[in-house]
């Protein structure tokens, strides 16, 4: 059991030395898998995740096809060794819900109507989990979709805002998430200025909600720059070959 620290923020610094508005170190790499049509690797603080994309390809079984658009199928999965106590393999209620909200976070960005009867399969494999896995997974999945060459309206960037010691902070780390006063992950399309995922648990005053929303949107814009850089790096490398 994690012991509660007396204070999460001392002299304006958080437990890991960050300021309230700082996110953990973030690196993204596009095109890390050989077989997948698109892929991305992400590290966010202690989180390590790979996202892959297959498709658009024919949807089987056929009765699941949509006649006017492609179906996006999302799978969020925590590896058994990704967390402190081993996680039993296979889907859980938590992963079922996250797979659903992740799909709904990504769908608005993809031109699904270009591929009737097809399916696009997105898989998010969390290999090391340290709070903020759904935001890391969605951020990577969006880069993987772009890496697969699938037409998109925008990238989807994702990060959480939360509350510790009555201060709104960006990108909660593990202790802050477990013992803090609230966690609010969002996903956001920066070019479109649209929120595609928002969840929250904890206890926010009304004005804290708006503050957290502004901070999370700001954070997503930072994440977006890293996503773009990852894609640019991969495709400039290809040109040099």
């Amino acid at each position, binding site marked *: 059991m994690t012991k509660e620290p007396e204070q999460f923020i001392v002299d304006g610094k958080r437990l890991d030395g960050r300021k309230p508005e700082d996110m953990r170190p973030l690196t993204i790499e596009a095109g890390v898998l050989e077989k997948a049509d698109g892929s991305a690797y992400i590290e966010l603080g202690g989180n390590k995740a790979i996202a892959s994309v297959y498709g658009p390809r024919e949807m089987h079984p056929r009765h699941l096809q949509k006649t006017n658009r492609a179906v996006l199928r999302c799978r969020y999965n925590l590896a058994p060794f990704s967390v402190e106590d081993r996680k039993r393999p296979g889907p859980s209620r938590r992963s*079922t819900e996250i797979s659903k909200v992740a799909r709904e976070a990504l769908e608005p960005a993809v031109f699904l109507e270009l591929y009737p009867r097809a399916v696009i399969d997105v898989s998010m494999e969390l290999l090391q989990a340290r709070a903020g896995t759904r935001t890391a997974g969605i951020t990577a999945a969006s880069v993987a979709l772009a890496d697969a060459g699938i037409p998109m309206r925008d990238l989807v960037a994702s990060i959480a805002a939360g509350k510790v010691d009555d201060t709104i902070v960006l990108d909660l780390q593990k202790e802050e998430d477990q013992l803090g006063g609230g966690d609010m992950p969002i996903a956001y399309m920066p070019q479109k200025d649209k929120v595609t995922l928002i969840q929250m648990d*904890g*206890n926010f005053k009304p004005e804290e909600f708006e503050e957290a929303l502004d901070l999370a949107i700001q954070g997503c814009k930072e994440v977006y720059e890293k996503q773009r850089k990852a894609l640019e790096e991969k495709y400039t490398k290809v040109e040099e070959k």
Partner: protein
Amino acid sequence: MSQREIIATVKKDYIVDLAEDNKRVDARDMDQYRDIRIQTGWAENAEGSALVDLGKTKVLTGVKLEKGTPYPDKPEEGVLITNVELSPMAHESFESGPPGEEATEIARVVDRGIRESEMVDFGKLCIEPEEEVWMVHVDIHILDHDGNLIDASSLASVAALLSTEVSEEEEDWKLSEFPVSRKPITTTFAKIKDKIMADPCLVEEDAMDARFSIATLENGNICAMQKGGSGTLTKEDLLEAQDLAKVKSEELREKLD
């Protein structure tokens, strides 16, 4: 396109056209809930229960207590287990079997509203630290699905918990009453064509871009939120929903008295 899909598209266009004029299919105001009826104590073999009618949506929640082992990270706290059963009688698309994505989401959203509000004092539901605690099972049965299952389920579950009484004859039950205090209220808003409307019915849900649910406490604080649906929301949408949630949750909370 099949005939079914054509009809669905026509219906959807109709709902969207109405929304553009701030109108709704059942002539409600944009911020108006359907009629609500709450009957507690309906399931007499449950320690707590509530049958909720939200318009034509019908949900029954039963609360049962049983003894079990606590979670290792919370050795002195009772356990909350929330489950949703989308009964095949409630809608043609529901099939029997293990809970799917929709049931799982509803259960987890209702669970978060109850848990994060701290309405149940789980610290009092410990029998023997690390050994035995009370497990509070909140089982939600969807009987008739005409939209907004999140609010109907949440309201039925909170009402059922507030009505929970444990028999004095129950072995190891030492409390004078079931330890509940706050009344978290979940309110859901649909976005259709840039318009926000409260308590979407099923045809509105079929036509909506996205929905947004907010669980509010008596003091106006927010304890849980969830966006659903494949569309997007703007910051303004979210703040508008937050303002509406404050007003509507007070209205719904009065129904619990």
